[in-house]
């Protein structure tokens, strides 16, 4: 039975993971996402659904525990925040190279370095460009509400298993720490080992005489074979762009100016659109929900309609590059964003749009 609750984004992730039937969570504490593992430990899902929850000795260990679990065909996830996600990049590259599904949550805080525990969106480039070594990408989802924190656990797993590719939920300290109303879905059963072995014939489930041995690996020493593998992976990314681009539009129908923002910044920008419209400026907002695959085609369409676009993000300008690539010079694209854990107000965004496009 579904249930209405008031909870933090981080808590919602944990609740949703249990209810979706996740098999394993491996994590390491880091602010501002520690509530994810704390909530799981409080709820003790190993006593109910059988979900494994383990605190690892490092983010390096947690991503590799996930790597092992994912190889078994299990639904495994971890969560961390920026510095911890940097430590996981090696493991993520292996997971992508071994074509394994898994879900990673990044509750982003400001960097570089140890930085701040306050919200930021400065890990965008790392997230959408793979993040580790090699030609690969993660599926990247950007929730902008606590409800989406819960809902995207399921969506991330569905996409991760559809493509056999790691998926990243790119949140931030604001969505992680704020509380909103959430409708939690009814409890689903975890998949049995037998069902899993039938559904995921690639998984390391122990070699029966009826099949060849399964080897989870990312190593291939023959360059031609490895080039073929890379082509295969790239084809998956093309397919994602065809089938799984997700975005949301606010008042774009008659918009003359377009704000482009994701996650927490998109929430702020909804208010900015309202304030701009109250001033008689026809503004709209495009919110990418999938940052990879990126809704570039949709932005390109809007480039024929609007006079300018403003990418608004809590960073020095990372999303703005993808917007510029998408519209390819058809329309001016400017950037506005605060950094270091400072969050822009809706009014600041209004001022930035006016300054860039309506003054002088």
């Amino acid at each position, binding site marked *: 039975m579904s249930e209405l609750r*008031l909870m933090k984004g981080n808590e919602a992730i944990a609740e949703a993971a249990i209810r979706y039937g996740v098999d394993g969570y491996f994590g390491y504490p880091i602010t501002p996402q520690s509530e994810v593992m704390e909530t799981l430990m409080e709820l003790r899902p190993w006593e109910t659904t059988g979900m494994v929850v383990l605190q690892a000795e490092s983010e390096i260990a947690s991503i590799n525990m996930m790597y092992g679990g994912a190889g078994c065909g299990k639904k495994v996830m971890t969560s961390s925040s920026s510095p911890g996600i940097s430590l996981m990049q090696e493991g993520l590259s292996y997971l992508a190279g071994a074509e394994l599904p898994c879900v990673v949550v990044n509750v982003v805080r400001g960097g570089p370095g140890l930085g701040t525990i*306050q919200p930021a969106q400065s890990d965008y480039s790392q997230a959408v460009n793979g993040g580790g070594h090699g030609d690969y990408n993660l599926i990247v989802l950007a929730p902008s509400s606590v409800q989406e924190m819960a809902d995207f656990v399921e969506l991330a797993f569905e996409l991760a298993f559809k493509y056999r590719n790691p998926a990243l939920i790119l949140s931030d300290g*604001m969505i992680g720490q*704020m509380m909103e*109303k959430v409708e939690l879905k009814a409890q689903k059963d975890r998949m049995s080992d037998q069902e899993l072995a039938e559904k995921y014939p690639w998984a390391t489930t122990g070699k029966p005489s009826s099949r060849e041995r399964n080897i989870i690996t990312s190593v291939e020493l023959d360059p031609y074979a490895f080039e073929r593998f890379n082509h295969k992976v790239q084809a998956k990314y093309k397919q994602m762009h065809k089938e799984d681009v997700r975005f949301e539009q606010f008042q774009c129908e008659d918009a003359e100016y377009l704000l482009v923002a994701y996650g927490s910044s998109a*929430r702020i920008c909804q208010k900015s659109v309202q304030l701009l419209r109250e001033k008689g400026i026809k503004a709209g907002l495009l919110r990418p929900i999938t940052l990879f695959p990126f809704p570039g085609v949709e932005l390109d369409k809007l480039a024929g309609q609007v006079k300018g676009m403003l990418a608004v993000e809590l960073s020095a300008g990372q999303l703005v590059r993808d917007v510029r690539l998408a519209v390819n010079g058809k329309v001016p694209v400017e950037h506005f964003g605060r950094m270091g854990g400072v969050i822009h*107000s*809706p009014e600041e965004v209004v001022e930035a749009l006016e300054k860039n496009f309506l003054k002088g």
Partner: protein
Amino acid sequence: MNEEIIIAGFGGQGVLSMGKILAYSGVMQGMEVSWMPSYGPEMRGGTANVTVILSDNRISSPILRKYDTAIILNQQSMDKFEQTVKPGGLLVYDGNGITRHPERDDINIYRVDAAEEASKMQSAKTFNMIVLGGYLKINPVVTMENVMNGLKKSLPERHHHLLPLNEAAIKRGTEIVKEIATV
């Protein structure tokens, strides 16, 4: 209905939990809600604040510059948030420790001496519920029934024996809230 509230005071005054109970009451009443604790450079030396939004519609930004209501529980917060109340809006404050009282003449100002009352009731922890009662008397955005439901949901079950005490505190707040100035 769309009510944008800032609650601000010292850490330990129950600012965040009061916001949570208010937000949960909104959920019980079928509203959209958001609860956003102090963030970034706002978070400084012992002060705590939380933005609570209750609305019939989908909530956009959980972070605001101007509020319909400010609930202010210490002098620093008074200095900081008095000017953020929208004209015609509401300021509710606890007089304890306040040396500079609110001065605006374009907003409605109410005072609820909750610290004093809590000490009379010999229950310092009900302080924030007395304040909440005072606010709800002036602006009954949620019904008392839904406040109690929200409270029940917010408190872990092991604390449910405290529900009657909290209810009494909220009631006391509705009785002692005083009008200072209205527009």
